[in-house]
């Protein structure tokens, strides 16, 4: 399949759009009409053809524009990409993982030619054709992690595993849901999760840590997370809160369908072979409410989830103030009919909206 790459922005005039193809394959995160935390992990071994779960690193119509947005963020704030000295080997591991995966999964877009340590990498969508020596940093324009993550959608947290914990010792973070690599760098798993409400009491993090430390080479895992974003902003960082936070007050009944976006993260987890580090790619997908409700099942369900979500979670996810406005809008797309189980759109089997 050939992807038509959009020319769009995630700032300023916000020309970001999802095509009908992108809407149908959106990773809707709710498998039932309510939501609570769980350690919702499963193996990352492909998924239905065309879905965002099919490939190891999903490439979609937003690829080229997302990479352009990342370059803007890095130019303004180089600390969005950091790697402590002992993490360089993990950076090479990540570069290899992505180059091998993308060249195998998208041979029409990416090529990797390896002759011993001499590697040639071709990235057609971005017009890159570089030859370098694997494990020799002097032969790349950036460190290995920065080089490859400037060419790969999603944020990347690269975690060192030692002393029965995981440590945020490297990363590329420009499309984040309000957390900061510069603040979290060097922290362990419990430290960087400290702000999350309820989950500690539920023992979620202890179980999640145990699971993650046992993610083995050749057996990656994945889960979804979600939040809400006003305007299709990739960079909702604490560093730039003064720029985007205010936009949450600009919602009106007239513009909410276009401005309010459900933000879903496809989080995957890979053991890196040479360094024994863990990489945690966090891929952000955005969808406007007005596009989401074109799938009747999703419209019904999103209304029920947002309506019944505990206040702590609506506060933590940053939309408690806008919840009444959201519910006014979403209730128009909930006719009270039951919904089919699972996350898929089920456009052929679910009835159209009955009001």
């Amino acid at each position, binding site marked *: 399949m050939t992807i038509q790459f959009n020319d769009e922005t995630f700032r300023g005039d916000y020309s970001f759009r999802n095509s009908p193809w992108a809407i149908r394959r959106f*990773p809707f*995160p709710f*498998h039932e009409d309510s939501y609570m935390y769980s350690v*919702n992990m*499963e*193996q990352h*071994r*492909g*998924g*239905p053809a065309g*879905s965002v*779960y099919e490939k190891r690193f999903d490439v979609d119509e937003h690829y080229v524009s997302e990479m352009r947005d990342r370059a803007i963020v890095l130019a303004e704030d180089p600390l969005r990409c950091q790697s402590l*000295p*002992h*993490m360089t*080997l993990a950076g090479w*591991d990540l570069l*290899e993982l992505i180059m091998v995966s993308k060249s195998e999964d998208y041979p029409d877009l990416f090529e990797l030619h390896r002759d011993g340590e001499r590697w040639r990498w071709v990235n057609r969508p971005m017009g890159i054709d570089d030859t370098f020596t694997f*494990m020799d940093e002097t032969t790349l324009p950036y460190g290995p992690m920065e080089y490859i993550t400037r060419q790969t959608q999603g944020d990347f947290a690269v975690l*060192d*595993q*030692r*002393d029965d914990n995981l440590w945020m010792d490297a990363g590329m973070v420009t499309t984040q849901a309000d957390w900061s690599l510069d603040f979290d760098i060097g922290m362990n798993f419990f430290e960087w999760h400290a702000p999350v409400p309820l989950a500690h009491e539920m023992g979620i993090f202890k179980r999640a840590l*145990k699971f993650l430390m*046992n993610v*083995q*080479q*050749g*057996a990656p895992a*994945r*889960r*979804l997370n979600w939040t809400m974003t006003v305007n299709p902003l990739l960079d909702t960082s604490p560093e730039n809160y003064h720029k985007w936070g205010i936009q949450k007050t600009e919602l009106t009944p007239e513009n909410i369908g276009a401005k309010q976006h459900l933000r879903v993260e496809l989080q995957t987890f890979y053991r890196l*072979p*040479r*360094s*024994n580090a863990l990489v945690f790619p966090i891929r952000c997908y955005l969808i406007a409410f007005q596009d989401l409700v074109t799938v009747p099942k999703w419209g019904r369900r999103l209304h029920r989830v947002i309506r019944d979500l505990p206040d702590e979670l609506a506060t933590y996810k940053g939309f408690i103030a806008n919840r009444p406005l959201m519910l006014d809008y979403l209730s128009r797309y909930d006719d009270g009919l039951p919904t089919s189980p699972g*996350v898929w759109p089920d456009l052929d089997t679910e009835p159209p909206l009955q009001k």
Partner: protein
Amino acid sequence: MSAAPQKAKAGAEKIEVIVSAVVPVNDLVTRFEFRRPDGAPFPPFSAGAHTVVEMNDAGRTRLNPYSLMSDPADSGTYAISVRRDDQGRGGSLFLHRNVKPGDRMTLSYPVNLFPIDLRGRKHVFLAGGIGITPFLAMIAQLEKLGARWELHYACRNEALASYADVLTARHPGKVRIYYDDRKQAIPLGDLLDGQPLGTHVYVCGPKGMIEWVHRTATEHGWPDDNVHSEEFLAPQPGQPFEVRLCKSDMTITVGENESLLEAMERCGVDAPFLCRGGACGQCETDVVEHDGEFIHRDHWLEDDQQASGTKIMPCVSRFVGPTLVLDR
């Protein structure tokens, strides 16, 4: 959550291999080298990792973990060195007696429970006997990275000092060998006192040696996090005992020479595992009910968990008594 929920399989992913060489190292130790049947490269691995070797011993499946000792940068070969244990449960004897070049075998993907701390300014390796194997891979990896290391290696005698000759020849000034029969011993206290800040110590060898290193390091003021060890426990034989598995709805008997994990596998129960040596925690199982005594032999459960009688690690631990009911 989402797409196509798949049940996690027990154990790590598997790799089909062909035995490419069987090389006697000395009277007790033999090296087994493997390549892939299709000539494809092996997955890269981090030094300190082990692989679980599957053996079909006359219809009985044996799964034994061995440290990968080959150079992690050599993707054409995986190698392990196996010490023959005449009193053991038979895995090492099977390898020594039955496995020949050209045989097809199955290995697990590498799993690392003994990684190098890459922050270390210097790495000091303490090996006892066959405990040398993970350090061979670590030395190869650190040499490539240009990191500082030294090895102190205690052996019974010169004839049984596996790889001592190669190591001393290749790395003069970084390797010291100590022979028991010459009454030589690693001068551990002095060694620990003399290290620069930021040094990490790694020990692999008999249980007594590991405890000695941890205890001495603590006495000499070393932080626990700078002292690393790995000890694979082999399941010990014991009295047969009966176990009720309530999720599987069956009652099984664990024989004298098999582990609880092996008995479950024999009966078709798909129980999780990784290391099969009491270290990784993957097979941790809840106890529903018991009347009797646990023989906990793992390194995973905390002392209070072991004492509570609510958890057992089926890969190495046993039970003596009339009633044991597990949530499996």
